[in-house]
């Protein structure tokens, strides 16, 4: 797979975005611009709004207030985008069948699919798993199938929601290697995590979220060396934020 130019649909601009569930603001007046380039990593404690942010950026949830624009002024999300959910659902078919389904839904011709399935399985380290039922795999293996499935869509923007949560170190390393290689090909990665180690390893830019707001943003090095806000300082120090 070759390197690509900046993806369509960037920058993604959030302007005073609010997403509410009844009286509760899941996202509270969020404004941020996500540009092409190194991965953007959303960090913050559980319940800070990271998943909702990713779903909104993917175009799966409409804001209650404010607006989201893709590619500067468009209000339709770009076609070549994909999201890896924290708990991906395996379709009731084999590993190859799951990847084939994603390729078919992305419009890849039947004649090309066998070769692509083989490449994607090798990429995520599931070369010998073609005919295994996807639902019978371990959590880490299912996460890799899901990663192959999102990469099958050849996305320009890839959203990752805690892709290594509850995985062991070796599975985490395997996923992170694929993510870094994908970013190196020019795919914009927007990832949510509450794992500070992973955020340091993957990110170029950090957006720190707390209670539905983006509290602080900045380059990863500067953010971890000199956090500006009290909440970010406490989160990096390992304090339990409410």
């Amino acid at each position, binding site marked *: 797979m070759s390197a690509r130019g900046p993806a369509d649909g960037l920058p993604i601009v959030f302007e005073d975005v609010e997403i509410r569930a009844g009286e509760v603001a899941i996202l509270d007046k969020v404004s941020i611009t996500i540009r092409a380039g190194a991965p953007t990593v959303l960090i913050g404690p559980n319940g800070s709004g990271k998943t909702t942010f990713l779903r909104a950026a993917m175009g799966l949830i409409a804001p209650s207030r404010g607006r989201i624009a893709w590619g500067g002024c468009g209000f339709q999300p770009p076609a070549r985008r994909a*999201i890896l959910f924290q708990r991906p*659902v395996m*379709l009731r078919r084999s590993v190859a069948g799951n990847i084939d*389904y994603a390729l078919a*839904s992305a419009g890849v011709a039947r004649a090309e699919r066998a070769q692509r399935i083989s490449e994607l399985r090798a990429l995520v380290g599931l070369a010998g798993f073609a005919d295994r*039922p996807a639902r019978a795999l371990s959590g880490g293996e299912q996460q890799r199938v899901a990663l192959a*499935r999102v990469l099958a*869509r050849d996305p320009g923007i890839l959203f990752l929601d805690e892709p290594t949560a509850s995985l062991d170190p070796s599975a985490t390393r395997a996923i992170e290697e694929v993510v870094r290689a994908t970013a190196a090909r020019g795919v914009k990665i927007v990832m949510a995590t509450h794992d500070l180690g992973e955020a340091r390893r993957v990110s170029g830019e950090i957006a720190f979220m707390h209670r539905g707001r983006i509290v602080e943003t900045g380059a990863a090095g500067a953010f971890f060396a000199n956090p500006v806000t009290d909440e970010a300082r406490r989160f990096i120090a390992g304090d339990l934020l409410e």
Partner: protein
Amino acid sequence: MPENASALHLLLTSDPALREIVWLSLFVSLSATLFAALIGVPAGALIALTRFRGREPLIVLLNALMGLPPVVAGLVVFLALSRSGPLGSWGLLFTPQAMIIAQTVLVAPIIAALTRQTIEDLWMEYRDELTAMNVAPVRRAITLIADAQFSLVTALLAGFGRATAEVGAIIIVGGNIDGFTRTMTTAIALETSKGELPLAIGLGIVLMLVVFAINALAWGARRAGERLAG
């Protein structure tokens, strides 16, 4: 007991009358289940995946029709097919075709209601992934039906069970004519009322064996398919 011995004799000698009745029963019930599936599966999937005014009352009605009394279904089809009815010109009353129509009316709501529930549950599970993959509505429905196929087998079995077990509908529209529209259930009812217990018992045993064999076959197919698909 002499009746049991005679029933066993009928079974072991493969009595032609018994064979004919068994064959017609299977033909009618399997045909009705097939037609009911062709109607019920797409209808159930459509109701599961679309939102429209009156959807909730329709689901309640569909669930209620699962308990439709066979005699009522038989009466409705009788009125439709009778000479003065809207479909009287078809000339189907007191034929196996009329029995298939009556059982289809009885079974289609069962298959549609169970399909609706199955597809809706699977859609809840798949919704995020299929939406994120931008899968078109028709392909969503096909995917859900394909992936729910093993659960839908249960819906088909429930429908087939209903069809093979009922007497009321087919006796009204079929007339229980010897050698033409007599099935296992109608024959059991008739022979019992006449005191001809050996044939009634023989038919009862065959009916149970057929239902058991088809359920065992479907269960085996389901388990094998589940092992392959995961």
